[in-house]
């Protein structure tokens, strides 16, 4: 059997910059951050008061944040018949649990998947499946590499011929639960995330919902679905080192990148740019630069992070950044790393606060998360 090429035939997103690729792309190119003051819960006790918030959402009233973010995106998908659904999130509708506990109720109602609001993420997945008319959904959760891993799994099913279409949906929201949690770990920047900056001091939480339809190139051609790009390789790894901190030497992430390049049958010299995880924490960004040097040696190429612009969207970050990577390939430009003013010595010659021209047949996009999970995808323009 000849392995199928994996084509993206649809992609959409809602981020703090707004709806659709154009809003997010132009926001990043403007160099202006969409991270703003949080007003949906009290941040008075925390180190930071800002996040990448999608405007117009209601909190603890009616539909969950994730449902509100996904509503329009799901409506506009032309769902391929027989497609598999891969759903990625870290916390799903966690505000259901927040409400139950805040109101002094038993948390049983919030975990019961028969109630309208359940903090069990499989419940949200079932609602997404019902909205799309798809059975056979799989929830993938791998911390902040959740949707990167979901894309890898979807692409694997297509390339192996076990499926010829997949819908990948990802979302995570800014809730008091996650905000207080990251604050407790002292992981938040007081102001805004400054990935790869010498003075960086933490991440900014963000929220987003994204969708993508993947198809075998054969089916896309048969159904006249024009590819917007391809995913030719993927790799996943674990640091096997620490629950919340990345390995200092970058070995784990480098393994994922090496696998992604190898699985595409590509050479490292063909990789022209990298959409990095770039959270803005001291250790993550340092680890990533070490990993990039393990893979590419001293051969610098444009590296950027979108998290100074729209925050760290957790389980949605991988899919969001894969779609941005396709736009970067299409326009042959890497967006500026928003809030990067003074490049850290480790990132000198790689990351920039200005847009950079890119070359190469491929672009890598990478994510890493708690538990030491890493994932990398190798993307190609249509």
């Amino acid at each position, binding site marked *: 059997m000849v392995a199928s090429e994996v084509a993206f035939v649809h992609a959409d997103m809602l981020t703090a910059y707004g709806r659709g690729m154009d809003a997010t792309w132009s926001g990043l190119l403007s160099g202006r951050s969409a991270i703003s003051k949080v007003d949906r819960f009290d941040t008075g006790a925390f180190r930071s008061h800002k996040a990448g918030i999608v405007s117009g959402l209601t909190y603890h009233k009616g539909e969950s944040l994730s449902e509100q973010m996904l509503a329009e995106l799901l409506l506009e998908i032309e769902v391929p018949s027989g497609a598999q659904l891969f759903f990625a999130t870290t916390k799903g509708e966690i505000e259901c649990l927040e409400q139950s*506990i805040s109101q002094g109720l038993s948390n049983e109602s919030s975990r019961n998947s028969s109630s309208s609001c359940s903090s069990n993420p499989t419940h949200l997945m079932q609602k997404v499946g019902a909205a799309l008319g798809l059975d056979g959904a799989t929830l993938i959760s791998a911390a902040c590499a959740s949707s990167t*891993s979901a894309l890898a799994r979807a692409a694997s099913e297509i390339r192996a011929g076990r499926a010829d279409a997949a819908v990948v949906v990802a979302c995570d929201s800014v809730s008091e639960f996650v905000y207080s949690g990251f604050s407790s770990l002292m992981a938040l920047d007081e102001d805004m995330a400054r990935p790869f900056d010498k003075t960086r001091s933490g991440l900014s939480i963000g929220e987003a919902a994204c969708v993508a339809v993947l198809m075998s190139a054969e089916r896309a051609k048969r159904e006249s679905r024009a590819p917007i790009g391809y995913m030719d390789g993927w790799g996943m790894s674990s640091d096997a080192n620490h629950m919340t901190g990345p390995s200092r030497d970058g070995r784990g992430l480098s393994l994922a990148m090496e696998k992604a390049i190898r699985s595409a049958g590509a050479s490292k010299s063909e990789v022209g740019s990298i959409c990095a995880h770039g959270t803005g924490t001291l250790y993550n960004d340092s680890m990533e630069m070490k990993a990039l040097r393990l893979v590419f040696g001293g051969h610098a190429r444009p590296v950027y992070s979108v998290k100074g612009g729209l925050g760290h969207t957790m389980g949605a970050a991988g899919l969001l950044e894969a779609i941005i990577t396709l736009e970067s390939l299409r326009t042959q430009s890497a967006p500026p790393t928003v809030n990067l003013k003074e490049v850290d010595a480790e990132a000198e010659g790689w990351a920039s606060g200005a847009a950079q021209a890119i070359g190469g047949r491929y672009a890598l996009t990478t994510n890493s998360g708690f538990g030491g999970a890493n994932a990398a995808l190798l993307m190609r323009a249509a």
Partner: protein
Amino acid sequence: MARVAGMAMAMASDAEGASAFSAPFKNYGRMDDTSKLVCRAVAHAVREAGLAYPFAPKLQAAIVGTSDEGCLDMDALYFKDYVECGRKLGRGNYFVYTLPSSPIGEATIHFGMEGPSLFVSGGLASAMGTALALMQDEEAELAFAVANTKDRAACIAISASKGAMDAHELRSRLAGAANIDDELDMIGRIT
């Protein structure tokens, strides 16, 4: 071709605790109950597979976890504690375990597994299917599929060549189960 190299269960009621591990487990005491249970099941499966650990160099082994409720207990514990503390400071050591993938993250660290680690829905058959796909994609040379309820956990070690049972056949049998409890009953009968 993929074989079941080892298969084992751990019960929450067992008093074995950290003695289940053949190497010191530095952080065992601070882990949540699910992580303890999952890691014990993995330790038994590693032993059943005839492997010695910690793996040095680290092993290209994948681990795929599954459960019906993920980390809902820890979610509730974390947020209740946060509310009871006046919504000023969450407890970081609770927050770390509010991800469905946290137990398998702990397992990768203790055993030294550098392959993919992820949580999937759909029970043990789904976790085994993902593990087999990861091996087929050459993401890992060995894989562990682990499922848990509150009371028990089962872990299946899958190897490319070693073991008496066909891993695909076991997966097919598990796919006929109604839920994770039934899957674990099935594994209990086999082990």
